[in-house]
Structures are given as C-alpha cells and as structure tokens.
C-alpha cells in the first residue's frame, strides 16, 4: 500500500517552467526524501501529487491507480502548521480522520502523549509555541488514513534539539506502522538521518540531479549524526550540490 | 351583492387610512368606533396611520378601503388615472391659511414681499401665494420660498422662516395654547376658488362599484360620528384622546371646540360636496399649469353615499 509512481511531470507558472520531466517512484513502505533549495519547486510537486494542481504533462499514480489531479489520496503535512485556531489540539489532530469518516480519539491521545504534548490535548493552537504547533500538524498527518504521507519540510520550524527528538520518534513510529513516506527538506542532516533514498533537486526548472541510496542500518540513533560515516556521506552529497552549481544562484 | 368578506362576528372588515397622525379632523371616525356606530352598520373598522406612504395610493391600490384625502390631491390623482373618489367633505370650508407670529407683522399678502415662506416644495404653494399677492399687486419674485420639509411650524418660524401654511384647527390652536399670537390669513378670505374641500373622505372606484352597500354603511356611521362631535365637542375630544392616548389632551380639547361648528357649517348636511367647488378649483389649478389636463369632476366626488337628510 502506498507505492507512488510519478512519470515525466512538468509544470509551468505564467510561462516559467518550475518542474521539468520529473520521474520518481516510491515503493511501498519506503522513506524517500527530496532534497532541494528553496524555491526549487518542492511544494509545487506536492501540490501536484495532492491533486491541488494539475500537471502540464505527466501522470501520477498510487498503487497503480491514476490519481493525477485527484485529491484526498495522500496524507499531508504543510510547511506552515495550518492548525485550525478554534479547535483544540485533540480536535485538530483528528481532522484528517474526520474528513474520511473515522475518528479514533484514544489513538490520537496516545500519539499526542508520545509527541511530548501530553496535557495539551485541550489547549488551543494559540497557546502553543511554533514548534509545538508543527508537531501537532505532524501528528495530524500521521493519524490520517491514507497510506502515503507527504511531509513538506515539517521540521523546519523546530529547533534542532526537538527536531532530533522528533526524527527518532518519527522513525520509531514509521517502523511500527510502515507507511510510505515522501519527505521534502533542504537539510542534508535530516535527509541523511531519515531516508532510505535521497533525490537531489536541481532548480530552474527543477529536475532530479542525483539519487543516493542511504545504507545506514535501522533503527538509527542520534549518535549516528556524529559518526565519521555520516560525515562522509554528508561530504558526498554536499559536493554533488556544489558540482551541480546548486545553492547559490537558485533564487535569482 | 357586496363582495366584501365577513368575519366570524358577521361584520364586514374594512380599513380606513388617515392622512397624517390622528387629530381632530378624524374625531368622527373615532367616535363612530367608540360608540359602536360602525358595528351597528355591520362593520369592523380598522383605523391606520399612513406613515410616509400617503393615504391616496393605498386607497387607490385597494390596500385600504377608505382614506382621508383632500380635494387637490384627488384632482391631481385623477389626472394620473388613479381611481380614487371623494365621498364626503369632513370640513365644509377650507380652514387652512398662512400663519405667522405677530412679531413678523404680516397682515396681508402685500407683506409677503421680502419675507421667507416655508413650504413643502409643491408647485401649488407658489401658485396660491402668487394669486394672493397678485390680488394686492405684490411681486412674488420678492418672496423667498424655502422647502422646510417635515419641520414643524413652531420650529420653522424660530429660524429663517417668516410664515407657513397651516391648518388652524391644529397648529393654530397649539399656538393659542402656547400663548403665541399668530397673524392668520385664511385662503377663504381671498378667493372663493380657493375654498376647496380639505380634508375629505375617499374610497376607490372598485369599492364603489363592487361594495356600494359597505360604502353606504360606512358613511352612515361616520356621519353619526361627526354629528356627535358637532353636538358634544368635549366628549368627542375625550373619545379621541382615549383612543390615541399619546396625543396632547389639551390640544385635542381646544381644537375640538374650535372645529365643532365648522364640520358642517353652512351645508345642508355634514359631508355634502358641491360640484362647482370641485369645478372651480380644478379650473384654477388648470389655469395655473398645475394640471396637465382637465378631469371630469363628476367622477372625482359623489354625495351618493351620504345618508339622506333625516335618515
């Protein structure tokens, strides 16, 4: 469940090509990360997969069903938490389920607890810090019923301290539930720590410049980040990015 | 024969719409209501205020069965094919006129020169004033005519305005009560042509055609009501105040006393209208370009629904 196939996807805005011939696939239960600079079109890709936008060319299929332009087939966590301010944490968290008919408050409470938000079930978003909000949004995505979860830089607003905790926690949850995850980030550490596979985006227009299969064994622990092996991989990916001339002019 | 529906008490329901807020012009109606004259005639009458709408359109549209109107309005309405008919004059002679505080020293139309008149912007006002002034070789161009809208007489003459057109029975009496002395020039003092009927009771043509008996019954009761007011002004005033407690009791009482003799005045019976008066005023209006065309005054009024004398 949750195998994603993207074929030769292209998308332009106002004549400017943002995505060009993007082909990628994510296998069932795989954790794939797209690493790309800001403005390269990562969120646009998610909007295409989520059916919010229609591609100019190409097709998207999930478990062999064509879902191009169809909504509701993926679970989603946006860049901004987008919590509903009039709902408590608990009610926000079950929103994804609610949209598809089933509510499981017990499980929701459990997950809230696990995310380190125990006691905040009845709090409103305005009472939370930016980081806490992001975590709530993440739990909401995890609780949604779809098999593929698209995470759009979910931890970019968290501090590195908590982010690291969340990484471990995410991996532990993921090992339990084995959902397919497509992750977007611009943080190399994050990508390396979490993924089975990393796709590096070039920009203007975005194409897939490189692909890395990450061999670290699971379960992964925080200490991994501080090993020589990790640093070696980081150098490797960084050099690709420098080679490709990414980074610098990406926004001009 | 009548097509009017009857209510569970077997009474015919009719509505009567006033021309303004209730006042002593309407006493007969309230007496007929209070004394049960309407009921005796098999009628259940509802008396309404018209608000901004104006009674004539309501009566014409059949939203009300009867209304209070005035000869000039009915004349104008008939020119536009608005089907309303006067069925009785409430006051025989025109009791309206131009009033001003005595300090202003306006005693004849000649004195209008250099003064400011406050009206409501109708062409008829200028026509009437100019005809009065012509009679004394005064120049209408030396009069400033200002539209004072809804502003009341007493307020207006405190500011900018020197004289205005009032019904003596109400505003004039209020002045007496206040102890403000007025110079009053009645229209009837100047011209027979201006002695038109105001106010009158009106109905629409469809009532006349379809429910003549209801109209007859209504006028019978109303006649009795005004008769009573003529004979017992104080008691009639009490009835009006009782029906409309928000009116000023003193004003009503005094106004009633003043009006008692003027309802019927010199007419053979209360409510009677003369064709020549209708004809005269229509001609007067036509001559002064206040009417687009002449009307058939026979269709504009009728005495047919007034009770026969001694009936």
């Amino acid at each position: 469940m949750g195998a994603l196939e993207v074929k030769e996807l292209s998308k332009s805005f106002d004549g400017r090509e943002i995505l060009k011939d993007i082909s990628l696939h994510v296998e069932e239960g795989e954790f794939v990360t797209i690493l790309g600079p800001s403005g390269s079109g990562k969120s646009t890709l998610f909007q295409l997969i989520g059916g919010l936008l229609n591609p100019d060319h190409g097709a998207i299929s999930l478990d062999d069903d064509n879902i191009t332009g169809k909504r509701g087939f993926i679970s989603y966590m946006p860049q901004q938490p987008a919590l509903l301010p009039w709902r408590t944490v608990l009610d926000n968290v079950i929103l994804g389920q609610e949209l598809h008919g089933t509510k499981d408050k017990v499980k929701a409470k459990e997950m809230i607890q696990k995310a380190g938000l125990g006691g905040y079930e009845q709090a409103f978003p305005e009472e939370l810090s930016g980081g806490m909000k992001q975590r709530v949004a993440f739990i909401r995505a995890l609780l949604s019923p779809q098999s593929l979860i698209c995470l759009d830089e979910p931890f970019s607003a968290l501090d590195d301290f908590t982010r690291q905790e969340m990484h471990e926690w995410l991996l532990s949850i993921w090992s339990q539930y084995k959902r397919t995850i497509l992750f977007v980030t611009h943080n190399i550490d994050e990508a390396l720590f979490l993924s089975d596979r990393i796709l590096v985006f070039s920009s203007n227009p975005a194409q897939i410049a490189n692909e890395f299969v990450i061999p670290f064994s699971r379960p992964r622990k925080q200490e991994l980040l501080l090993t020589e092996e990790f640093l070696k991989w980081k150098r490797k990916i960084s050099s690709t990015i420098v080679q490709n001339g990414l980074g610098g002019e990406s926004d001009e | 024969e009548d097509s009017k529906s009857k209510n569970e008490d077997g009474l015919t329901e009719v509505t009567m719409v006033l021309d303004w807020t209730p006042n002593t012009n309407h006493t007969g109606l309230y007496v007929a209501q209070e004394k049960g004259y309407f009921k005796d005639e098999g009628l259940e009458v509802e008396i309404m205020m018209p608000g901004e709408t104006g009674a004539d359109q309501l009566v014409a549209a059949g939203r009300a069965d009867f209304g209070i109107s005035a000869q000039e309005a009915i004349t104008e309405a008939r020119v536009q094919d608005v089907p309303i008919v006067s069925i009785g004059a409430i006051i025989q002679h025109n009791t309206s006129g131009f009033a001003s505080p005595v300090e202003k020293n306006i005693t004849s139309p000649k004195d209008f020169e250099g003064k400011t008149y406050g009206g409501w912007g109708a062409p008829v006002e200028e026509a009437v004033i100019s005809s009065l002034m012509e009679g004394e070789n005064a120049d209408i161009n030396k009069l400033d005519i200002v539209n004072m809208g809804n502003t009341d007489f007493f307020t207006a003459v405190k500011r900018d305005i020197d004289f205005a057109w009032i019904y003596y029975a109400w505003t004039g009496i209020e002045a007496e009560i206040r102890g403000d002395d007025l110079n009053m020039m009645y229209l009837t003092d100047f011209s027979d042509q201006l002695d038109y009927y105001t106010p009158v009771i009106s109905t629409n043509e469809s009532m006349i055609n379809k429910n003549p008996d209801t109209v007859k019954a209504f006028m019978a009761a109303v006649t009795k009501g005004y008769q009573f007011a003529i004979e017992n002004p104080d008691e009639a005033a009490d009835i009006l105040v009782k029906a409309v407690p928000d009116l000023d009791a003193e004003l009503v009482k005094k106004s009633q006393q003043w009006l008692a003799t003027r309802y019927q005045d010199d007419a053979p019976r209360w409510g009677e209208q003369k064709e020549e008066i209708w004809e005269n005023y229509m001609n007067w209006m036509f001559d002064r370009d206040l009417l687009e065309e002449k009307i058939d005054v026979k269709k504009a009024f009728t005495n047919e629904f007034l009770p026969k004398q001694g009936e």
Partner: protein
Amino acid sequence: MVKLLGTLWRKGWRPALVLLLLLTIWQVTVKVADVPTWLLPAPSVIVLEGWSNFGNFTHHLQSTIGLALTGFVIGCSVGLLVAILLHLLPGVREAVYPLLILSQNVPIIVLAPLLVIWFGFGVLPKIIIITLVCFFPITIAALGGFKNTPPEMKHYMLMAGANKLQLFSKLEWPNSLPALFSGLKIAATYSVMGAVISEWLGAKQGIGVYMTLASSSFRTDRVFVAIFIVMILSLLFFGVITLFEKLLIKGRRKGD
C-alpha cells in the same frame, strides 16, 4: 457571570462617565439658556416624562421589540443563506454580488411606501423592510469571512481530501464566525432602527408610531424619550449578540 460584570465595569465606566458629562452639559445649557421644552427638552425632563409615562409605553415597546426580533431573525437567516449560496456558487456570486451592493443604494425610505402599496398594512411589508436592512451586513460579513480563510489552511484541507461541503463546514464556516458576529452586531442595531422606520409606514403601535404622534402633537420631550428608548434597545441587542459571541468563539486571540 461575575467575570462578565467585571469586564462590563472595566470597559463601561469610561463611556458612562463621558455620557454623564455630556448629559450634564446638556442639562445645564438648557437650564441656563432657558431653552423651551418644545424646542429642546432637558435630560431631566425627558427622563421624568419617560418614567411617569412608562405604563402607556409598554405596548409600543413590545410591538417594536417583536417586530425587530422577527425581522432580525428572518433578515439574518436570509442573509446567511444568500452568503452561503453565493460562496458555494462562485458563478452566481460574480453575477449577483454587484447587484446586491447596487441594491443597497435604493433608499429604503423611498421603497417603503411602495412596499406598503404592494403588500398592504400587515406585518409583511414591515418585516420585509427590516429584513432588507438586516440582511446586507450579514451577507457581506459572512462572505468576507468565508473568503478570508487563510490560504495555507484551505490548502491543507484540500490536500487532505476535504470535499466542498467539508471545506465549508469545517474550515470556512468556523473561520467566518468573528466576521459574522460583527455583521450580526450591525444587523442587530439596524433591526431596531428598521423596526422604527417600518412603523412610520403605518402601524397601530410601536415606538415609531409613538414618535410620530409625539412629534405631531408638538411633544418634543416624548420624541426624545423615544430616541432614548431606541438607543437603549439597540444597545441591549448589541450586548446580547456580544454575549453570544463570547460564548461561541474559542481559541482565537482577541484584539488588545
């Protein structure tokens, strides 16, 4: 409840003080300049008249309140319905919205007599007037509220597979509540004025009638009693809506 009274006191004492000051100035001016009552009555005269005459007044009051409430409820329902329809049918909105705004330029007072001619003297034309007066602020407020939904939230809902109805009921509707309540507050005060105006079109009782009667029998003091009552009534309506708002709107930071 105690907290509410506390808030009322904290927010209310300043305006109350200013009001008192204004009334005092008015009172003193009238007394010193010896302005006749029929021209401009002193506040004391007005209060006294209102007090001593309150018995005669209650049936007018009841009638106006009934009218205003009915009109308010109908007007708001219609307004909301129109807003929801226009929101859910963008094609219709584009066609109708400008006309709605245009319609607000028809002076109600001009329309009113025509309404009476067309619909008679009953309650109907009056309710229509109040409805016309109430529904517009509601429609505008609700439409604004619906449209003002933060794009990132709308985004999320759509990506998560919300259909149009869910998008509306779970996001746009609750998001519009604060705007809606501002609309309701405006409509509530309008409804009282609308009721008074509608009574000028012919009614047997009501504050509008009382006002007209007072005015035509030169009782300026009573006209002011009516004005005061209208203001108090509007304030009450406003207060009730605010109370509902406090109870209903959660989890949103209030302005300072």
